[in-house]
């Protein structure tokens, strides 16, 4: 059975100054997502995780364009679709939850109108059945007394409730994939825990697949099945969450896990020295090598290719290179160069 979403060699560039400056925000990113699965995408700010998601839903800002690769979703290539075709996919097939619920809700429209919109356009619901659907959705995201609340406006809701309403809007069109871009960053810890439990429950009920964009590995540990670690526009390591937490292969993944404070331990954190690189002026070779504690001389020259380090597991690091003596060195260089 084909995967629900298969992104292969996706390249999205920001082009400015008439092509004089090209920022490779997403550089040959590939991953797959099955029905009902949860993929975590972690990385520091500016590593390209949000641009990857915006490429999938076709909402790239002006100046950014997909220059290569495919985004296969349920048999269609989203990267080749026109805007009007994408409108029929967004909301109906793929929904997005953004970080700031206040900015993603319109303050002038009632909750009813905003939750009803995707069901109106994509599910062709009208009148009484539309009202029933909105109540059902608000019930599903645990808004108390939905019949009354749906006549209210976003400013009358607390932060946690607003984010739950954004969740209801995402579900309204009956999508098979939800992309959640740091949905809990602005929420308090207990509200965050409630929201994550709720998302998990909704996923079990509806079987929707979720891409979780976050910089918080704790959220990944709780929510996700698979994990893709991004650094400087590339996926540097990908695999199942458990395997990546137990045996990280890429030094960046190791460093990220080491810099997470653990409850009840006073162990010194292993910080990553230096700063994340500027995507416009990337270092040659592996982009992580200036900060890498295990860097080899060749890391500064050759860009490592994506090596398979296990079933469904890849790492973009020379240390993960399979040790097969009879492959001549030139072949590696060729693999790295393209």
């Amino acid at each position, binding site marked *: 059975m084909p995967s629900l979403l298969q992104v292969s060699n996706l390249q999205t560039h920001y082009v400015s100054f008439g092509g004089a400056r090209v920022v490779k925000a997403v550089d040959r990113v590939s991953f797959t997502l099955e029905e009902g699965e949860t993929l975590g995408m972690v990385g520091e700010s500016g590593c390209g995780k949000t641009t990857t998601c915006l490429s999938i839903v076709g909402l790239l800002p002006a100046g950014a364009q997909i220059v290569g690769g495919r985004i296969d979703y349920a048999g269609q290539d989203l990267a080749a679709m026109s805007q009007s075709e994408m409108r029929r996919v967004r909301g109906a097939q793929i929904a997005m939850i953004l970080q700031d619920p206040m900015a993603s809700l319109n303050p002038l429209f009632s909750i009813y109108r905003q939750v009803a919109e995707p069901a109106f356009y994509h599910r062709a619901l009208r009148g009484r059945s539309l009202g029933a659907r909105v109540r059902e959705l608000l019930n599903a995201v645990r808004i108390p007394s939905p019949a009354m609340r749906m006549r209210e406006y976003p400013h009358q809701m607390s932060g946690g409730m607003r984010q739950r309403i954004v969740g209801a809007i995402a579900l309204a069109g009956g999508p098979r994939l939800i992309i959640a871009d740091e949905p809990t960053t602005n929420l308090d810890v207990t509200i965050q825990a409630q929201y994550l439990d709720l998302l998990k429950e909704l996923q079990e009920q509806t079987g929707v697949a979720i891409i979780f964009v976050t910089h918080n590995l704790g959220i990944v540990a709780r929510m996700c099945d698979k994990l893709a670690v991004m650094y400087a526009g590339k996926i540097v390591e990908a695999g199942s969450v458990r395997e990546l937490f137990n045996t990280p292969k890429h030094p960046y993944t190791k460093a990220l896990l080491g810099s997470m404070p653990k*409850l009840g331990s006073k162990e010194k*954190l292993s910080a990553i020295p230096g700063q994340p690189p500027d995507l416009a002026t990337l270092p040659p070779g592996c982009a992580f090598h200036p900060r890498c504690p295990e860097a080899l001389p060749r890391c500064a020259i050759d860009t490592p290719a994506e090596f398979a380090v296990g079933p469904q597991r890849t790492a973009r690091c020379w240390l993960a290179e399979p040790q097969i003596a009879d492959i001549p060195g030139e072949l590696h260089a060729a693999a790295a160069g393209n």
Partner: protein
Amino acid sequence: MPPLLEIEGLTKHFPVTTAVFPRKKVAWVKAVDGIDFSINPAETPGVIGESGCGKTTTSKLILLQESPTAGTIRFDGQDISGLSGAGLMRYRREVQVVFQDPYSSLSPRMRVSEIIAEPLQIHTNMTRQQQQERVAEVLDLVGLRPEVARLFPHEFSGGQRQRVAIARALVTDTRLIVLDEPVSALDVSIRAQIMNQLEELQERLGVSYLFIGHDLATVAHISHRIAVMYLGQIVELAEALELCHRPLHPYTNALFTAALPAHPDDKHEKLALSGEVPSALAPPPGCRFHPRCPKAMARCAIEAPVRKEVDPGHSVRCHLY
């Protein structure tokens, strides 16, 4: 050793007024309601709580940005509300602050050298030469090269800006720095750098921190003791590790349940806590936590619990103990 800073019965109520005219006070927001707390030299107490629990108001009271409704803050045994003239200058010199967002807390029009030297111009009579030497010294302390003194804040990344803010806080032989969520706005890898840097500076300089945060793991990592705040009150206070291993108050327990796991195999209990933090405008009668508390008893709705010491250094405000 006597504590550096002692807080007793500290209370801050903000009036809620009607429209501009006639202006009447109709209610009070009890932002901070009777907290007792102390900070020892070279120690880091942490304050943890959700938004609206009064942690930022507490820091403002300590920094003299607000005056308390009741209660006292003593620094070096002296009540700070009575300070004036030279005494007040000394207090402002020795107590400094680092804010959450280094993008808005540093003036974009000033060079780093001017930002860091400004407290020196106000509080010392150093010559320009001496000031610049001191700036280079603190830049070195926070791990920045002295050449960066010429640059403007926009030329730095978030982590470097936060280092500049820490350097500015350290420049006047500071004894207490209030850290108001200093790492929340930073990237994960940079967070660990700044936390390690703060711990190292404390070892070298013996400065005290008041670390305010909402992320349990971060606060527990850097703090020696932790005060858990809920709706303007400290509901539990204990040594950091003691609190992690034996949280007593149901709210502290809920915070630990809500904390994210460090590993996918960590067991996950469902959060028993329902609802959201009530408004500080009308805190519930009795124990302020009882409407959300999974272990509430009939008594909790009527009688407010007092803070009891259940073990040396571990006190909790709950009828269960």
